[in-house]
């Protein structure tokens, strides 16, 4: 059995459970944290651009299906971010927690910016006051989730060299 594949499946299921069950149970405010973005960060930096794009498209579509009224906002953002993660993964080996935290943090901000821009362009403008709180929570929690998923992935895919 290929350990990375198993680890990937497990962290996917884990991310799904955390996003749908754990975060709402802990606090409604944590709903803005995005476990799928954390998962994309964990998986994306281990893949190449092509896989990164595919993961981004899939996880973005899933995020939209679960969190948004219309599918496509996170789909676009995650696809671009997945490409970016894949590109970074091709250029360098990211192993440190600080680097992953920083990448995920930046990804949260980029995702929020992209989704806000698309939403404002296609539907209606959003007031900044509405955005700051959820984005701050997401920017703080999502990188932590990414660190947690990274830990689990490493435990399951022991011996894998990212």
């Amino acid at each position, binding site marked *: 059995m290929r350990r990375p594949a198993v680890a990937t499946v497990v962290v996917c299921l884990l991310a799904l459970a955390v996003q749908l069950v754990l975060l709402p149970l802990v606090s409604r405010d944590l709903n803005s944290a995005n476990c799928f973005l954390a998962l994309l960060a964990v998986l994306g930096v281990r893949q190449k*651009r092509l896989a990164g794009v595919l993961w981004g498209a899939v996880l973005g579509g899933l995020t939209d299906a679960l969190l948004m009224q219309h599918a*496509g906002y996170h789909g676009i953002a995650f*696809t*671009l971010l997945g490409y970016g993660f894949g590109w970074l993964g091709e250029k360098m080996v990211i192993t440190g927690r600080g680097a992953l935290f920083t990448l995920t943090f930046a990804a949260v901000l980029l995702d929020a910016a992209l989704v806000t821009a698309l939403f404002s362009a296609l539907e209606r403008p959003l007031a900044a006051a509405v955005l700051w709180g959820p984005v701050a929570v997401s920017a703080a929690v999502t990188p932590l989730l990414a660190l947690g998923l990274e830990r689990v992935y490493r435990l399951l895919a022991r011996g894998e060299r990212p």
Partner: protein
Amino acid sequence: MQRTLASRRPELLLLLFTVGYLVALTLQVRRGGQTVLGGTALALFGPVLTAYNSAARFSQEGFDAYLWQRDAALRAEALSRENLALRGELQRVQPLADENARLRRLLDVPPPPAVRLVGGRALMRYGEPFGRYLLVSCDPAAPVFPDTPVLDPDGVVGKVQASSGNFYRVLLVTDPSSAVGVMTARTGARGVAVGDGRAIEVSWVTNEADVRPGDRFVTSGEDGVFPPGISVGTAIAVSDGGDYLKRITLRPAAALDTLTWVVLAVKGRA
């Protein structure tokens, strides 16, 4: 080329997904009753379509206007001819329409009881100053006898005095030798209407009777000639006389000067 595409597969896929998601979004998000994609397409292609449509319409309308102008003189001439023909037709038809209206009014005359109305054509008035007669022609098979009442839509015209073939001489109600039993429709005051040449005088109405100018006089039926209830005339002058009898003048109800069609009230059920 193939190698380039293979090496750029991630970017192509990125583009594909991004565009795909964007299209999906524009298909889902609705603004102003239509999807964003529909609105965008309309905004992009609307001016082009409008310009094309305007140009096509301008060309068509311009060509139509040219044809219209080119044929205007011919159409005007044809219309003038048609107008002339229609005027001639109107000259011919208008009298028929008037006659038709008169006949329709005649048909509305309520038939007196136990009589049958027979139509007749008023041919001419004659006999003045010695008499006031009307020559009438009608169906010779109709049982018309002397003293048959003759009416028009407005009232009593006179009565048949003599006949020859299908021609009948009618003694008008304004003739001095004519006498018709009358009464006022309002109070029932009775008298005898006698012609004075142009109007009708009512005699044998006492001064006590309630008669006023404007009262309508109808046949009373007492003369045995005219059925009761038919208009004879309207009082235009009423005054008390020294012989205890009123002087009453009527304007004839029938249009005696313009008669064209009359009806003869012959005896027998309609």
